């Protein structure tokens, strides 16, 4: 598991301590009008083989040199087995506990949260200032990771209240509820557990969404194939009542009509790699040419490219990695013994906007 911590120091502006994730994949949700990653949020993505998590908004006791409150972001990503990383149950448990505490902080914004309290305990101003000043530095990256792990490792500090997890099977696999609704939060947490354990899907707090019929929600549901646990969190909304099912994702059948479950996974072999790379290069060149022809100052959506690239790699190959570009769609390998839904694996994941 990779742990990145972002905060600011007294003098030094916001940055990741020691080592910056290659892609700021979470900011894609802001571009799509779904959630503001600079507000208290939780973003969990899983492609079945791996997961990544973005948490933002816990407020430190520390203040900057203009007495402005300082916030934390934490980015977690499951390790890449091909690099010899192993996520053990302890890592998943750690991520789960952290998300739970974060959810508590996000849903009750008044007062000091346990997450902030614990982070401040292990991250005094002088330490943070020192780490930030060292710039790109594996050592401070490691130290920050260690501090975060320490802050939330079980058995430390005062005991936590038991985590409220809905134990019954969630009524829907794809739904939207409200951040202020306890039942929705419990179900959200149950989904998070499943995502960490290998189900494909997303659990998101959406600060731009106020109702189940917001067009962006339909767009999201159309673009995503896995589970969706969504909590509306737009300021000033009338809380969404209950949990609303979202359009079911169609199981995508391959051209030969066979159910995907019965197919053997075809990991992206070395032989196919050059082909895929070539296709990606062609797409890239095409996109650049198109950009140059039609180019305007408008932020041009990148995902068109990355989504297309995902399509080519075909079904059970891709895996979430902390380095994936924003907008890339994770997919779940069907070989995963934990997989139990046919819609998880699909070429149409590329339909991201």
């Amino acid at each position: 598991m990779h742990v990145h911590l972002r905060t600011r120091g007294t003098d030094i502006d916001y940055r990741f301590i020691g080592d910056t994730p290659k892609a700021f994949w979470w900011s894609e949700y802001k571009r799509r009008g779904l959630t503001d990653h600079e507000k208290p949020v939780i973003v969990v993505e899983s492609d079945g083989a791996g997961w990544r998590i973005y948490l933002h908004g816990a407020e430190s006791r520390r203040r900057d040199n203009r007495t402005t409150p300082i916030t934390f972001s934490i980015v977690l990503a499951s390790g890449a087995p091909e690099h010899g990383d192993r996520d053990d149950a302890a890592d998943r448990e750690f991520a789960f506990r952290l998300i739970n505490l974060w959810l508590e902080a996000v849903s009750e914004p008044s007062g000091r949260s346990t997450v902030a309290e614990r982070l401040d305990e292990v991250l005094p101003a002088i330490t943070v200032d020192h780490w930030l000043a060292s710039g790109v530095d594996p050592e401070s990256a490691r130290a920050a990771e260690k501090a975060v792990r320490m802050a939330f490792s079980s058995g430390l500090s005062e005991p936590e209240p038991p985590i409220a997890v809905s134990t019954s099977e969630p009524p829907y696999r794809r739904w939207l509820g409200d951040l202020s609704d306890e039942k929705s939060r419990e179900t959200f947490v149950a989904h998070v557990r499943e995502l960490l354990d290998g189900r494909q899907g997303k659990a998101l707090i959406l600060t731009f969404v106020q109702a189940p019929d917001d067009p962006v929600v339909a767009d999201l549901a159309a673009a995503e194939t896995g589970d969706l646990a969504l909590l509306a969190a737009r300021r000033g909304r009338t809380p969404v009542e209950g949990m609303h099912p979202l359009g079911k994702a169609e199981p995508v059948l391959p051209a030969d009509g066979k159910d995907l479950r019965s197919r053997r996974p075809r990991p992206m072999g070395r032989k196919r790699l050059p082909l895929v790379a070539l296709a990606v290069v062609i797409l890239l060149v095409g996109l650049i040419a198109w950009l140059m022809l039609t180019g305007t100052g408008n932020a041009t959506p990148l995902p068109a490219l990355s989504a297309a690239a995902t399509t080519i790699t075909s079904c059970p190959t891709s895996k979430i990695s902390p380095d994936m570009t924003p907008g890339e769609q994770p997919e779940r390998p069907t070989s995963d013994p934990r997989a139990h839904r046919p819609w998880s694996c699909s070429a149409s994941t590329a339909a991201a906007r």
Partner: protein
Amino acid sequence: MTTDQVAFKIGLLGPSRVGKTSLVTAMLSEAQRMLAGSGVAMVAADTATEVVIDGNREALQGDLLSGEFLHGSLLGTVEPTYFKLALDPGVPDARIDIELLDFPGGWIKPKDRVGVEDQWEKCRKFIAASTILLVPVDASLLMETTEKEHLRLLPQFLTTVQVEQVARDWAIERNRRPEEPALVAFCPVKGEAYFNDNGGIKNRSVLLRQRFDTVYAGVVQAVRAEAPKATILYAPVDTIGCVELVRADWTKSSTGIWGFDAKYRVRGKAEISRMGVDDLMTAIAQQLIYGKRLAGAQESDDLRALANRAAEYAERSEGFFRDIWLWVNRERQARRTAAAQHDREAREALHRVLALDAVLEKIAAQRFGPRVSRL
């Protein structure tokens, strides 16, 4: 937003906490006030902008209602934020988009953007393509710093050296595009205590200007040297207006780090009273109108030559003139449609498209208030 949409870019340049986000919020509010009843609306063009600006307004209102002005209801910017506004005459595709970029203030220091070079490169490109550069200036820092040991901290806190570097790059880029208008506006903010035209008692605006001239001399010089034709404005702005500085202190932490803390209290009726934001809107409208005149110029040969060059330029550029050209062409299209179809709907659409021009002309023609001067 389609790629065919006109999007004028405005770069914001200043350290964290100077007041960039507040300035954008104030600009949207002021534009809405100025356009009321004109048939043209200034709107947030995407959800992110709408929600973020609403949030800022709410936080500000909350501060004002509580009577206590907490420097901290607005948190610092963590990643680049693109604010998308639009002047909307109510005709599909006929609106003008205005895009502002607010990036983490720290990024203007090279050593503070390690690891985010890619994103900085995008910001840099945006700024290079901006015809307008807004530079908020912290008036309270300029005015409340008097001791020698604190004065030496000003460049660090105002990031004048870095602002100068980015402004110079911008000016060089502007100079490469001599046909395009170029405007840099220095906007002292947090200066309610130094003017007596908006609820304040003392007028210390002359001193503020002197301090600005001293501390920002390098920045102004850099722009003037690299882009002699650029318009340089000094335009103090009250984004809030109804607050007053009660105390400002330089303090040193136990670890030896300096900090500056200014405390404000709400004065009068606790109602936001913006000042000078309309001047900014006038300056922006002048840019648009100037570009439009150039693009559609028929009056003089001189202008026609310029316009021809501009047209040529627009063909291969993705900057200002391409957008102006789209704007002019859309208007032509609306005229043609109205002439060909004679129906009420087509004429109505043309009418609205022209309303956009009319209102921009009107705003552009307004005289600057007494706070503003050309540098």
